[in-house]
């Protein structure tokens, strides 16, 4: 066997050994980022105290750090995802009554693989199997908003406290909004053809997945997710670095600060037409925050960008009548507004 094919076959033949090696390698690289970026900026022909040096240091340190974090976590999530297929999630949810199921749906939203282009098949499949409408919405709100990409970026750029807050509040919004929609009894506002779809059982086809296949799942998640979002992250960090180095301190405070009560609704309204898969927006948001924007306002903006996107609403319109779409938007937007105000009031 040649060298390259041997390297390629290694993760599949010795999955456990591969995981241990990969973890050690990852940790080693992570330790090297800060000294390397400092060294690089030191040897570049720029004044170390200038705006340019500040922006460069931010860019050279944050880019590899965020990309490395993202690769590691997406790989692990790719492996975890192989335990939580949409079929299994559906089977778990169909068995439970509302309330508890809303909580479970929001939690499963974190670990079940989801892409917004699958929103419609998933929606119909859940409803067909007798998962209540409100529970389906809890899942549909949580899955894109509380995902590993958003959480990793928040952790990498803001620290674990903010990442945890986003996790907790995102889950709360998903649970509550889904529960409220369930109370409104809007099943008649699904498109007729969806209501007429034959009922299906929520069986979970049990599959035996071996460790090597889960490792494969990790690789394909990295290829598909990191391969897709890295240009957004690079662009986002570059813009963030620019704001970091050049926009004066407290510039944002005037119109995104705590004193401006209208800033939270404005942030939510601005967030809806913007759509960048969570990855591009967070680095920009970090820079806004550093320049005096209020945390609640910024979090509300981010949640609105991720959870209420125009493209997804257009896709969902195929299965939901206008009144149900409008209710969905109003309920979720209110939840996000509340989060924004609570934060600004507490901190």
């Amino acid at each position, binding site marked *: 066997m040649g060298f390259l094919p041997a390297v390629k076959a290694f993760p599949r033949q010795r999955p456990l050994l591969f995981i241990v090696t990969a973890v050690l390698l990852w940790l080693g690289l992570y330790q090297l980022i800060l000294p390397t970026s400092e060294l690089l900026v030191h040897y570049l022909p720029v004044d170390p105290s200038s705006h340019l040096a500040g922006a460069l240091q931010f860019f050279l340190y944050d880019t590899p750090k965020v990309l490395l974090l993202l690769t590691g976590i997406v790989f692990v999530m790719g492996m975890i995802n192989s335990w939580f*297929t949409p079929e299994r999630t*559906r089977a778990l949810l169909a068995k439970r009554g509302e309330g508890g199921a809303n909580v479970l749906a929001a939690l499963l939203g974190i670990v079940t693989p989801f*892409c917004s*282009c699958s929103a419609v098949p998933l929606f119909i499949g859940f409803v067909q199997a007798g998962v209540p409408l409100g529970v389906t919405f809890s899942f549909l709100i949580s899955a894109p908003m509380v995902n590993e990409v958003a959480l990793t970026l928040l952790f990498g750029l803001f620290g674990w406290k903010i990442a945890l807050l986003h996790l907790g509040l995102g889950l709360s919004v998903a649970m509550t909004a889904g529960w409220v929609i369930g109370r409104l009894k809007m099943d008649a506002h699904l498109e007729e*053809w969806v209501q007429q779809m034959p009922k299906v059982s929520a069986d979970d086809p049990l599959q035996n997945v071996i460790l090597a296949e889960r490792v494969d799942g990790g690789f*394909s998640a990295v290829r*598909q997710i990191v391969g897709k979002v890295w240009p957004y992250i690079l662009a986002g960090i570059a813009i963030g670095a620019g704001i970091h180095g050049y926009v004066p301190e407290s510039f944002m405070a005037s119109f995104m600060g705590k004193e401006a009560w209208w800033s939270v609704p404005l942030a939510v309204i601005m967030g809806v037409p913007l759509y960048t898969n969570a990855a591009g927006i967070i680095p920009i948001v970090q820079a806004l925050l550093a320049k005096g924007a209020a945390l609640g306002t910024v979090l509300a903006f981010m949640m609105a960008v991720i959870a209420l996107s125009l493209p997804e609403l257009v896709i969902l319109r195929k299965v939901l009548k206008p009144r149900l779409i409008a209710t969905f938007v109003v309920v979720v937007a209110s939840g996000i507004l509340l989060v924004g105000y609570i934060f600004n009031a507490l901190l």
Partner: protein
Amino acid sequence: MKNIKVLGPGCANCKTVAKLITAVAEEKGIAIELEKVEEIREIMSFGILATPGVVVDGQVVHSGGIPSRDKIAQWLTA
């Protein structure tokens, strides 16, 4: 000749899967009939929960994400 359907409402991943299947079939010299199913009601009639889905001779073999080349080769030669 195998009949293969790629189920998906025209998203990027769906197109990638269709291309990948064509490429693997050519590589292996296997003649296939490839159909793209983009109408959402028709997609749902196969009972999948995530797109892209792949159907080989009426049997759903895959749903959600991009399958590996090895897997595609297995479907084509089975």
